[in-house]
């Protein structure tokens, strides 16, 4: 049976209930797909391709935190160390070419030692889509999909493709309590039209897509703060679907240029949707003023802008991307209250010899959501390809988080600094 099998790894701390609810249907679907794979393997184009990746890690972390509030006479310094082993992530991919024009793809993801019995980690359906190929210049994809936004979004959970263990800040699931990826990037869309057209030694690429504004609108839970003024939500009678279906949709796209040998890639991305500020994870509701807090009762019109660039010259390579998130809020503007987020990632690497790659990266994020927060991540690491399917990786990360006093938004002067040093070791395996 020609069933190609390959693998990646990754982590998350939430959604155990969601994982349990999905377990039975997911396992049943998996069995059906495997049975199907056996039956259809005879014809090259009809066979179900099954492959995946996993990443297992050991990490040690040293953390140090200081908090100062002169007016409240608060001064706190604390430190902590810990280390642990984890199966960071495993993904199983199913792909089937149903005809010359139709292709289906499924990505089933297990995170952080997933166990429904022990309520560990999560199991989620990350992608499940069907693509209709009209021509290379026109593809129509529908289903649950990762939309085109910069270059990392499409491979954010394909860790086996990357030299690092710890992803760039906003993509890293280990930091999901700090950073919700969907605050910066469109995590999922449901319809995407894309294509590429030859242009001398390059391809011009485009993609446009639509989907739901963000997953927080789909949750069944009540808003976490403020007054619920959303009429649609009060009339919610369906489970697991977007109750604000009429009001809030995501629209986005990307245009890009790629050299034919794929050594140079660059592009510009944009999305428009709404952010459910009541569910904003970064807002320290207990700290912000009542004026600022009133903003968080609302849905905010949001624009995300992205730019990406990657270039490879022989053994050397550079990857970079930046994201700027802006909110259209008159009330915030009236109160001179900033609502915006930024993210910058650069990585420079070198293939010393084919199996060994070394790299260094810098990430920065700015978060003005009720506070003036800055995040810096400095990272260096190496990846050694033991064979075509197994890679050994090591990485050192210094994470710095600074909350500064923002008198416009905070009830008390407040400064906080957190520095965490991580040491990661791990293996990435293609299944």
């Amino acid at each position, binding site marked *: 049976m020609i069933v*190609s099998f*390959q693998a*990646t790894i990754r982590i998350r701390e939430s959604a155990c209930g969601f994982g349990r609810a999905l377990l039975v249907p997911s396992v049943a679907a998996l069995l059906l797909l495997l049975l199907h794979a056996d039956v259809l393997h005879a014809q*090259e*184009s009809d066979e179900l*391709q099954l*492959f995946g*990746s996993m990443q297992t890690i050991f990490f040690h972390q040293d953390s140090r935190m200081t908090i100062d509030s002169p007016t409240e006479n608060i001064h706190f310094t604390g430190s902590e160390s810990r280390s642990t082993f984890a199966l960071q992530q495993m993904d199983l*991919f199913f*792909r089937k*070419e149903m005809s*010359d*024009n139709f*292709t289906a*793809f499924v*990505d089933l993801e297990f995170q952080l030692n997933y166990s429904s019995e022990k309520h560990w980690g999560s199991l989620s359906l990350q*992608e499940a*889509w069907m*693509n209709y*190929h009209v*021509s*290379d210049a026109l593809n129509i994809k529908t289903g649950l999909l*990762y939309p085109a936004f910069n270059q990392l979004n*499409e*491979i954010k959970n*394909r860790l*086996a*493709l990357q030299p690092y263990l710890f992803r760039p800040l906003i993509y890293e699931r280990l930091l999901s309590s700090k950073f919700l990826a969907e605050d910066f990037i469109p995590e999922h869309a449901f319809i995407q039209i894309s294509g*590429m057209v*030859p242009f001398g*030694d390059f*391809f011009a690429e485009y993609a446009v897509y639509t989907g739901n504004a963000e997953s927080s609108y789909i949750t069944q839970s009540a808003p976490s703060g403020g007054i619920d003024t959303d009429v649609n939500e009060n009339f919610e009678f369906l489970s697991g679907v977007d109750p604000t279906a009429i009001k809030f949709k995501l629209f986005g796209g990307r245009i890009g240029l790629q050299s*034919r*040998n*794929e*050594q140079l890639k660059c592009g510009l991305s944009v999305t428009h949707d709404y952010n459910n500020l009541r569910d904003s994870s970064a807002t320290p509701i207990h700290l912000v003023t009542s004026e600022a807090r009133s903003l968080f009762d609302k849905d905010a019109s949001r624009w995300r802008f992205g730019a990406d660039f990657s270039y*490879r010259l022989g053994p050397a390579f550079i990857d970079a991307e930046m994201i700027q998130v802006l909110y259209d809020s008159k009330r915030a503007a009236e109160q001179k209250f900033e609502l915006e987020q930024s993210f910058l990632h650069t990585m420079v690497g070198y*293939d010393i010899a*084919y199996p060994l790659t070394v790299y260094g990266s810098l990430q920065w994020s700015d978060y003005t959501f009720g506070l003036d927060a800055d995040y810096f991540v400095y990272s260096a690491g190496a990846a050694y390809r033991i064979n*075509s399917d197994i890679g050994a990786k090591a990485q050192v990360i210094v994470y710095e988080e600074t909350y500064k006093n923002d008198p416009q938004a905070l009830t008390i002067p407040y400064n906080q600094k957190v520095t965490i040093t991580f040491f990661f070791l791990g293996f990435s395996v*293609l299944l």
Partner: protein
Amino acid sequence: MKWSSSLYFSDSALYYDASMKTHFFIAFLVTGIVLLTCSSLAQTVVIVNTSVPSSTSFDVDELLDVYTLNKAHWEDGSRITVFDLKRGKSKAAFYEYIGMSEEELQRIWLRKQFTGRARPPRSLSSEEEIVERVGRTPGAIGYVQNQSVKNNRNVRVVAKIKGTK
């Protein structure tokens, strides 16, 4: 006959010289023809299944697009199935021709596979296997040395890699 007489030692030095020159010239000619023939036999060629539209262009850009999986369909809309060799002179010659290294292609294939865009080429061990699989797979493409093609009627040679021996 000079040639036959030159097989014997002649008393005439002048006659010996002329005979030897002719001999060397003929030997040189024969060696050249043999080398040219061998060179021609060992040339790396690109083959496709006969179902592939004959109007298709197979210049280096086209082959690069096919092997980077950026071109997934032929002009008639049929899906392209790409075959690759695990190792060998043909592989080195073909990769050099399209200007890619094995590592670069592996990286590109892995990304395409893991994002669901394309299936990576099937990597086969022998040229005979490539010819056989290309011959029985509609829309297939591969590369081999031209003597491996033999008289397989299901494949068509569409490009010759310049400078290969």
